[in-house]
């Protein structure tokens, strides 16, 4: 459904992605592992149109989406949960959700359904719906970032280190949410440092190093291959 073919991305003069090729099929959870600074976040930003690839091709559901504006990609059904969450701090929780919900094609009843669904997954967001996003705790902001992306009724969600800096209890919650999305047949491209979590939720895993994919395996294979994990991830 989503395919990157030999994508190269630069930040100014620095060459960050050296020909990345990744595929995600419909409804599939795919992990993207690697040490800090190997280009995982840049890969997601490139897919989302936030940085333009200098070469290569990105396609989504058979359509070439290379170089499309981010708002077009969001409307095509690509949800993005960035690493730093990027909550609209001065908007209330509900207004944050409305940024993705106020689309012409969403009927009032569908709108209510979508809201009820995220409130069911994240009850704390219902309690805090009239509170400014900036006043939420880190874990709550992470929930809001995911809930906000869900408002777009995405076909795929790009999740950038959703468990970074969260307490174990919150990590468990995020993991449940990934399972909920998966059951709803939403594909997920999950960037993580947390290897056990990624191996538990993902079907396939790509490992990146120095701006390129170095290893590709199913989660089960990778889980049994301590040498590869140690070589690329140092754990």
């Amino acid at each position, binding site marked *: 459904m989503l395919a990157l073919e030999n994508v190269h991305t630069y930040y100014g003069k620095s060459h960050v992605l050296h020909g990345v090729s990744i595929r995600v099929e419909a409804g599939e959870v795919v992990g993207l592992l690697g040490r800090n600074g190997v280009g995982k976040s840049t890969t997601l930003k490139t897919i*989302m*149109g*936030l940085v333009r690839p200098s070469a290569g091709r990105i396609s989504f559901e058979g359509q070439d989406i290379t170089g499309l*504006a*981010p*708002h077009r*990609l*969001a*409307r095509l059904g690509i949800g*993005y949960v*960035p690493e730093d969450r*990027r909550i*609209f*701090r*001065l*908007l209330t929780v509900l*207004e*944050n959700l*409305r*940024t*993705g919900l*106020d*689309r012409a094609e969403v009927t009032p009843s569908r709108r209510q359904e979508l809201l009820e669904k995220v409130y069911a997954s994240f009850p704390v967001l219902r309690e805090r719906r009239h509170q400014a996003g900036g006043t939420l705790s880190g874990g709550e902001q992470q929930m809001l970032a995911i809930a*906000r992306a869900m408002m*777009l009724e995405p076909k795929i969600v790009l999740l950038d280190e959703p468990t970074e800096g969260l307490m174990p209890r919150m990590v468990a919650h995020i993991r449940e949410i990934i399972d909920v999305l998966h059951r709803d047949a939403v594909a997920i491209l999950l960037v993580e440092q947390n290897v056990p979590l990624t191996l538990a939720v993902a079907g396939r895993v790509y490992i990146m190093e120095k701006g390129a994919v170095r290893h590709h395996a199913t989660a089960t294979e990778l889980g049994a291959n301590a040498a590869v994990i140690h070589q690329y991830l140092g754990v």
Partner: protein
Amino acid sequence: MPFDQILIQLINGIVSGMILALVASGLTLIFGIMDVVNFAHGELFMLGAYAGVTILAATGNFWVALLAACVIIALLGAALQVVALRPLVGRDPLTTILATFGISLVLQNYALWQFGPVARKIQEPFTGHFRLFYLEYPWYRILIAVLSAAIIGMLWLFMKYGKYGIWIRATTQDRIMASAMGIPVPLVHTAVFAIGAAMAAASGVLFGPLVGVNHAMGLDVILRAFIVVVVGGMGNLGGSILAAIFISLLEALASIWVSPAQAVIVSFVVLILTLLFRPTGLFVPTPK
């Protein structure tokens, strides 16, 4: 204590403060969302007044002139944004200063060429007065204050509850995340520029009857509007409105004791003090 004078000047201060608030809110809205300091804002105000003059002459109806001027200047603003500012997104902010300053010069000289150097007059929609101590105070001035407040109030409601208001606030806070949420950011930028331009045009038409309409009328207003926007906190809508009223009241009260020309100094004093002690703006809550 000259109580009657103080009361009259308070009313004068609120009237000019509301007009100023109308100009400044457009300016601060545009800055907040695009980081563009719109040096052509005074010319949109001036062209709004000229559009008002022209349409009033053709239709004889002040209200039609007011509405039509807003629409025309909004379209002009949108066109200017698309042609001159959209290509500069992501470039050094200095380039947008050059661009808007250039637009300002072009528009000012266009007005001079089109309408000539002689000031035009807009006839106020009604000329009634009421007795205010020793003065016959024109109702029209009160109407200006009320209408300006109404326009600002509508803007506030729109920004607070409207779907597109939320889009604008989201884009102001985080342009990149807004676009990742499917908000068409370039379109939002154009729309905000158009809204700001329409508000400048509205104030131009409303203000027209009090002063002559001429090609340089934007200069004085824009200078005061810039002071207000800085004192209120760049990009802070509520702050700009408060600052506009605050500074206009100070100036009005000061002109009881000194000449109006000297009273203008007050706003510069406020500006300098603000920059020295509260450089992020007088009405911005101190960051925690």
